[in-house]
Each structure stands twice: as C-alpha cells, then as structure tokens.
C-alpha cells in the first residue's frame, strides 16, 4: 500500500490523519497485508452449508408501527434545530 493508496482509503473512510501517522500506518498495514498472503495456501472451497455457521434464514417481523420518543435523542445531538440534526453547509 503506497502513500497514494492510503489517501484514497482515507477519503473513502472519511478520516483525516497526520502525514506522520500516514507513514507509520502504511508500514504497519503493509506488514499486516503481507501476513494475509497465508490465505493463498487454502485452495479448498467449503461446503455451502458452512457459508454461515449457524442457521441460514433471516428473521422477519410483522408490519406494525411503533412509536419511539426519547429526550436523549435531542440531548445527544451536537446541534439540534427545528426538530432536526443541523449540519454545516454541504457545498
């Protein structure tokens, strides 16, 4: 992972880090990714039943609305205005 790669990954993950950290991280991540090459030792494909280890069908619920109100929703918000979550300008 070169420095340029880290920048695009940081962009995708919406993270800003210092150049110093960037350098440190790329070295560490390179080491970790090198370790991942052991996966190429496995060429066997698992039996499909082991794709998800436990049961395989999703749980569903009835279509019944339920109200949720809690003062903490507003209290936790960094900037709550006119009933909504206010954010800085987008463009």
């Amino acid at each position, binding site marked *: 992972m070169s420095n340029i790669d880290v920048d695009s990954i940081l962009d995708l993950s919406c993270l800003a880090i210092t150049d110093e950290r960037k350098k440190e991280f790329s070295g560490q991540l390179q080491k970790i990714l090198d370790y991942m090459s052991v996966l190429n030792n496995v060429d066997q494909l698992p039996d499909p039943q082991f794709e998800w280890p436990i049961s395989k069908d999703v749980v569903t619920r009835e279509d019944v609305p339920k109200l949720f109100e809690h003062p903490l929703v507003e209290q*936790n918000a960094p900037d709550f205005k006119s009933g909504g979550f206010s954010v*800085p300008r987008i463009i």
Partner: protein
Amino acid sequence: MSILRQIEKDLNSGQYTVAELTQAVLKKIAADDTNSFIESFDSSALNTAAEIDASDQTSSLIAKGMPVGIKDNMCFENHGVTCASAILDGYKSPYTSTAVQNMLDRGFVPVGRLNMDEFAMGSSNEYSIYGLVDNPWDASCVPGGSSGGSAAAVASGLVPVSLGSDTGGSIRQPASFCGVVGLKPTYGRVSRYGLIAFASSLDQIGPFAQYVEDVAILFESICGFDSNDSTSELRTDQSFVDQLKSGTLTGKRIGVPNELMSEKVATSVQDAIRKTLKTLESAGAIIDYFDFKYFDEALATYYILAPAEASSNLSRFDGVRYGHRSAKGQTLRDMIELSRQEGFGDEVKRRIILGTYVLSSGYYDAYYGKAQQVRGVVTQRYSDLLNQYDFICSPTAPTTAFKKGAHEGDPLTMYLSDLATIPVNLAGLPAISIPCGLDSNGLPIGFQMTGGWFQEQSLLQAAYELEQRLAFKPKNQFRMDPLL
C-alpha cells in the same frame, strides 16, 4: 463454589439487604485504583436495590439483587456508554440492550460500566481513552482485552460477576490474563441488540466470574432469542444451572491441536496445559492430539473480516446525530472527517483503514472474498473435529499477561496473541476459559475448552468438573464487607 449462591444465602438469611450490598459494592468501586470501572451507576443502582428490597418478588434462578458490572459497549437507557472512545464522549443511550434488559428482569443490579479497548479493538486494554487497567495479579501487567475492565473487576473482587463481549477472544483472553472464568457463547445465543457493534458476524456477549457456576447463572440470565436481533437463535435448551453438576468427564473425548502445544506458546503455559490435560485424563477423559492446520489462515481471515465489518459499523459515528463533533469543520464533509479524526484512537483508525482497504474495488475478491471462503473452510474443519471430539482444548492465550507497553507500535505481534481464540469466533462456537495455574511470575494461565454449536450445557458441566479438580485459588474473592 459460587459467590452468587453465597450472597443469595446471606440475603435470604437477612445478613444484609440488597441496598446494603449495593452500597458496599459502590464504595469498593469508588475506592478502587485499578481503573477497571469507567463509571459507577450510583443512583440507578441504589434505586433498583431499594425497589428489590421493597418488593416480595422472587426469582427462581438466583435471588434478586446481584451486583453486576457491564462492559462500556452495552446500551443501558439513560446511562452513558462510550466504547471507551472520545467519539462517544458524553453520549447517553435512549434505550436498553436486550442482554442488559434480560439481566435486569432477573433482578441483577448493574453497578457501573467497565473499561475496555476502544470499540473492543485490542488485546490489552491499552487503547482506552480512560487509560490503562491494572492486572490485579501484577499492576505492571495488562489485564488483557478487549474486556479488560470486566475481567479485572471480577479478579479484584469488586463485583462477583460482569459482562463482556468477545469478537476474537475479548472475553477469554482477559479471563486468562486475570485468572477468572469467561464464557463466549455460541453465536446467536445472546442477543446483540444494544451491543455497540465491532464486527457483527463475530461479536457475542458473555459472562465473567470467578467460578463456573456463577458464569452459568449469569449466562442463563442473559441468553435467549430476541426479535430485535435477526442473528439471534430460537432455542429450547436455555437452562444451564439445573444440570450443571450432573455432568461427567468420564469417556469425554478431548482433542488438542498440536500447533497450540508448540513453540508458538510459552513453555510455562504449555506445562500448565499439559498438567490440566493429565487431570482430565485422570477424571476419565480421553486425550488425543491433532493438527488443526489453519491457525495462521484463521488469524489472517479474522484480520480481514473483522476490520471490514468494523469499517462499515463505525461509519455511523459521523458527528451528525450524536457523539463528538469537531468545532473546526466548515463543510459537512470536513466536519465528518475532523470529528472522526479527533474522536477515534489510532488502533480504531488502523482497523478502519485496513477494513476499508480490503473492501475497496479491486481488492475485494483477493481479501474479503478469499477470507469468506477460508472462514467456511475453518468452520467445516471444526465441524469435522467436533464429530470426533466432545471438546477441543488448548491454552487460551500463548502467554500470560504481558507488561504494559510491551507491544507498542507493533500491532501485528499484538494480533498474533489472539491465535488460540480467533478461530472459535470464525466458526461461531462456544468456548470457555478457566484458570488452571500460575506461571513462575505468579501470573494466571487460562485453559480454553471449545464445544459444539449450542453445546454450552455440556461445556459448562465439563468446565465445572474440571474446576473442582483444579481447585484454582482466586486472587481477591468478592466479599461482602458491610463495614466498607
């Protein structure tokens, strides 16, 4: 031995009230200097205690009023929860997680939230904004992680039981380092609703205690199907305490992976495990060794899948609706970037970057896709092995507790310390760590037993049997001292 049963006896005989018990625990926490608690829930705990004292409702499982600590990643309505991260500083949950609710319904009294590695990412509890936690056996050592506070609080006798969560060993490894019992249940046994997610397909809540019986009691209190968690399982076998003492080790087939009795593991740890296997053998179990073959692959798989899921799970921390918001961002995008930069610690950032990378276009198949395939292979391997063996046994961790700062700047070495616990999470199996001895430095060693899917009953029975024979002496047993 059971501390909860002892407390029950005392409560029933009127030795002290739940309020007195709770008060005493809160005082202990206030006086504690191991940093295992982040916050104690003084007023809500005392209110709950008073309600229990005033009510004549009883519980069939265990008397109401048992104090319990919860890891700082479980939501509890009107209480703070931060995952030991600056990004959730000051956040209070408007709802209660199912595991905590189940526990409340059984009459447990949550007394506070426990220190952990930020977002459960770590094996030493060193990545917490609330600072390091002392290992109760040696304050210069780490308690393990990520549920370091949960393990240390029990080991130092602050609370009789606590809850942690285990994604790659986060219950079992600190249990091992702190000389307590920790259970990671089968994936789907305990609802994850209200557990702040690290890696959704691996996370599972589980109990800590000094004795197997107390682990079984807390486990039975929290487990069960939950319609709020699509991955929770509807099971009929949900009683573990009744039959706990009716098991036998005679004839039990035990498999031991050769790789975990090799140079990968400290000699003193190997010695203690060998001794424990002898104990099992003398109790009538049949010991067999095998090559697991996939430890390195499992570790690599884990460090692709867990960060991948985490990178997505942690996207909701954007400073828009709750949590830390940077004062500096002029635009929405800048605000989100800076809030995340300021709010997340280094290890979390490292894993977000790693996880984003393995999911990004051009790398997905080579990393994420490949890892899913290997996860299936590992699961299938376990399935085959568990047809041959009742339990797979090994050391819980390759070493005993290491010194604080030992792995600084070297995340890969830290990751390698999860070798024995990680494959179990990939397969979603239940596993327990029980203390089986001390090394030459007087630090505890954990013995890990892995059972088949949903075989917690037989796993707990076997662990209980073994515990009786090992007679491990805890460091600081929880004691009710009304004078405190």
